[in-house]
């Protein structure tokens, strides 16, 4: 072909068209995820569907097909509902809840964690991932986790606005609240996550104790043991901070 421009145009268009045509005809062409999660490749769960491969485009129906969790259950765990919970997608969690106060998140990764806990399959969630309190309640009620694990999860779990009060569940964005301690009483099991939610800042803490706060999931009791300070001192001083911030 003398006209090289026409040659390039023809080769490019034909190669793309051939690639599309052949793969389409053979059924290989896919522009969406197959919704079949990858299998766990090793260990005692080898061959099982991998919760870590759940993607934002997976619907709750897809989750049921792959992991056997009823869509209504998944929707209730994450404070979502509608006429067709099965059609809700994992990424709707991102859109509805997403990033919470303090950098915590309820999104696709939280669904992976919930699925792993429900099925007993291994999965290590990202550090910022938390579950709604309703999800922990469901896991415990249906005996998917023991009380010890439930207590551990509740340290960071957040209470979604529509989950406990029997309000009509919707997927409208809402501000989650920290889990229940309505009296704002600092106790040994109170976590730094709760303290921050009650208005205690890192600066206030440093000014008082001259030692940084613990991780969000660490309790006052843990911190007292780590630092060697007395629990009563921590309790009284932090209570003052909570009260002054209220």
């Amino acid at each position: 072909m003398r006209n090289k421009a026409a040659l390039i145009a023809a080769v490019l268009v034909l190669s793309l068209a051939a690639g599309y045509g052949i793969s389409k005809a053979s059924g290989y062409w896919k522009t969406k995820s197959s919704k079949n999660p990858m299998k766990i490749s090793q260990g005692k769960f080898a061959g099982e569907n991998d919760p870590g491969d759940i993607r934002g485009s997976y619907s709750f129906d897809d989750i049921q097909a792959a992991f056997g969790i009823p869509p209504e259950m998944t929707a209730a765990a994450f404070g979502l509902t509608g006429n067709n919970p099965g059609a809700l997608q994992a990424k709707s969690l991102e859109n509805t809840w997403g990033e919470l106060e303090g950098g915590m998140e309820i999104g696709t990764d939280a669904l992976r964690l919930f699925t792993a806990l429900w099925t007993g399959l291994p999965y290590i969630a990202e550090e910022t991932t938390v579950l709604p309190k309703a999800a922990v309640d469901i896991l415990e009620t249906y005996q998917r986790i023991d009380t010890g694990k439930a207590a551990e999860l509740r340290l960071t779990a957040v209470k979604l606005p529509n989950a406990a009060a029997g309000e009509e569940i919707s997927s409208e964005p809402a501000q989650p609240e920290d889990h229940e301690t309505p009296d704002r009483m600092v106790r040994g099991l109170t976590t730094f996550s709760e303290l921050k939610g009650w208005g205690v800042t890192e600066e206030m803490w440093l000014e008082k104790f001259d030692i940084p706060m613990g991780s969000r999931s660490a309790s006052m009791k843990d911190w007292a043991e780590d630092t060697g300070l007395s629990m009563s001192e921590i309790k009284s001083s932090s209570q003052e901070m909570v009260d002054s911030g209220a």
Partner: protein
Amino acid sequence: MKTERWRRSIQILFFILIALIAVNHTLSESGASIPIPFLADASLHAVCPFGGVVTVFKLVTQGGFVQKIHESSLVLGIAVFAAAILLGPAFCGWICPFGTFQEFVSKFGRKLLGKKFGKLIPKKLDGILKYLRYAVLIWVVVMTAISGKLIFSDIDPYYALFQFWTGEVAIAGFIALGIVLVMSLFVERPFCRYACPYGAFLGLTNLFRFMPIHRNASTCISCSKCDKACSMGIEISNKTTIRDPRCISCLLCTSDAVCPVSNTVEMKVIPYQEIRNAK
């Protein structure tokens, strides 16, 4: 200027196609979509052939695709690579909508700066920066293999350009797009030259492509018009066969475009005998 007309037509065609796909995907997520059958509601990632490159490791080792990448990306990646074996990275010079976007912005840059356009980066620095895209390529491939996620999309200016309305673009993506936009006013195709990992990958086909750009030294009048026309900053006038990985097969340097002597700079299959004689 027949060559340029051909190229522009293809560029505009694919720019519109990708823009339609991007808009259609957004519409489909809200329940509506443009009724163009084969577009379906593919995401931008699903029609990006670079996805086919970054997913290879996971495909080989685990039999799956990295997140957001599908079979379509692999198919397009193979098709583009097959074409590149014959013609070099013509995808970059003829199809890539982000290359088209940069060229469009550079048109304004040329008007604004006149002869100063393209002089922002000294040759020495350009000679070093041209390797940067290989560092980006290695980083992207390794990190994608490790994480199983499409990590480049967070800083991908192409993704930012075609998804800016979705709320899914990271701040870093907008910053990268802003930098490319501003730099395109001073330099031709800055992203392609210094940062594009896919261009770096496809550029390697220049080393062995069947139809390279060839300069006939015996008829060349050394006017250097080919050098000035090259949007990737390659000095063509001192080479016989262009094996520079930066060549994007735009054909702007050829006798069908700026070269004033016919059959002097052209893309052709170089017979082995001719290569030997040239040596």
